[in-house]
């Protein structure tokens, strides 16, 4: 018999499949239970809040997965500029290609939005912690506090990933310009920046 954790995982994955297929509005508990091969009753034992609770869980799970993949893609980068450039390129591409994530980030009902908002502060803190390591290794401009710089960078990286605005984040040259101007110009001495590596 499957462990409790495995069943829960199977439900979340079925929830994801149904969300992708039907959208948040039309996804039903019955569909998910069927896709997961369990009864409605079992489903409610795992998610007493029903559809809404499951939706939140799917969003959290996918959000988490997104950052895991992002981390995987950038963890071997050497320098601060390289890690941010690659992070923006990969994160942007992943969001563009990831239909469900895009739906979650852009046009979902308030319930999903609030799940993402709840996650936004911890996410920012995690991204900042990750960048802090790179900041501490890099030559910094006079008087720059690495923690404050990490928070500023994390906020902007997340902002650009969610909504690229006027920047073409699929173009490595534009990404390099963005990183070397708006993001890093106040943080590192210009002469310390390496040439674009991606």
């Amino acid at each position, binding site marked *: 018999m499957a462990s409790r954790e495995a069943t829960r995982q199977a439900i979340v994955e079925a929830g994801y499949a149904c969300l992708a297929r039907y959208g948040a509005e039309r996804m039903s508990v019955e569909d998910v239970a069927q896709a997961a091969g369990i009864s409605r009753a079992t489903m409610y034992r795992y998610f007493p809040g029903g559809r809404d609770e499951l939706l939140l869980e799917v969003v959290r799970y996918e959000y988490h997965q997104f950052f895991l993949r992002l981390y995987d893609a950038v963890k071997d980068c050497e320098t601060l500029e390289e890690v941010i450039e690659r992070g923006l390129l990969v994160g942007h591409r992943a969001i563009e290609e990831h239909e469900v994530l895009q739906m979650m980030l852009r046009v979902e009902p308030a319930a999903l939005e609030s799940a993402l*908002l709840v996650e936004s502060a911890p996410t920012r803190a995690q991204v900042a912690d990750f960048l802090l390591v790179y900041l501490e290794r890099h030559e910094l401009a006079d*008087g720059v506090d690495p923690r404050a710089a990490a*928070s500023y960078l994390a906020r902007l990286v997340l902002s650009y990933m969610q909504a690229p*605005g006027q920047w073409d984040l699929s173009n490595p040259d534009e990404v390099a310009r963005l990183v070397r101007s708006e993001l890093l*110009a*106040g943080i590192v001495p210009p002469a310390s920046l390496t040439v674009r590596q991606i």
Partner: protein
Amino acid sequence: MTATAVPALRVVGDDEVEGSAPPRSKRVQIVDGALRCIARQGVKKTTVEEIARESSMSRATLYRVFPGGRDEVLQAVVDTELARFFSNVAVALGTAATLEDVIVAGIHRAGSLLLDSGALAALIDEDAWSVLRHAMLDDLDHTISVASAFAEPFFGRFLEPDGARRGAELVVRVVLSYLIDPDEAVDIRDEESVRTFVRAFVLPGVEALRTDDGDER
């Protein structure tokens, strides 16, 4: 979470000015009356009857001016408050003497107005702020593009068009980020705190957008 009767955040376009609109003064009277009701008792408890009474007119007259009733009045209140917000920010940006001042004014004025504006906040009741955040985040790209287009001309006094466009957008992102997720290190209600932050991170970033050719200081 309130799912109903949350006016949408939008900017009024030319196409929405009806040719057969009743005299403007009645609209103003009703919007002001609604604002007073909302400030006193919040949105949820504000009814059409009360708005009409507060505006010293009959319900019938109110419906003639706003056939959509309560929702339409609330939308007009949101539009009015947004216009007030943007003109307030425009004054701050327009009187700034340097690029640094434009950036500081943009972050400080827009941030404190959005955080403290009684009307904008009361407008959407207890979860005012969360609902406003949803409205803004619902379509982040759209919010960023509308706000950046508004701010861009003020940056254009100091930068070439490309830099002005991108610089304005950066400042909009900063405001949104610090509103949604406040930071211990930067108090956007405090001008000096904002200035220190701008000098350290934002201004150098915008300055670096200048291209080698064509941009004069």
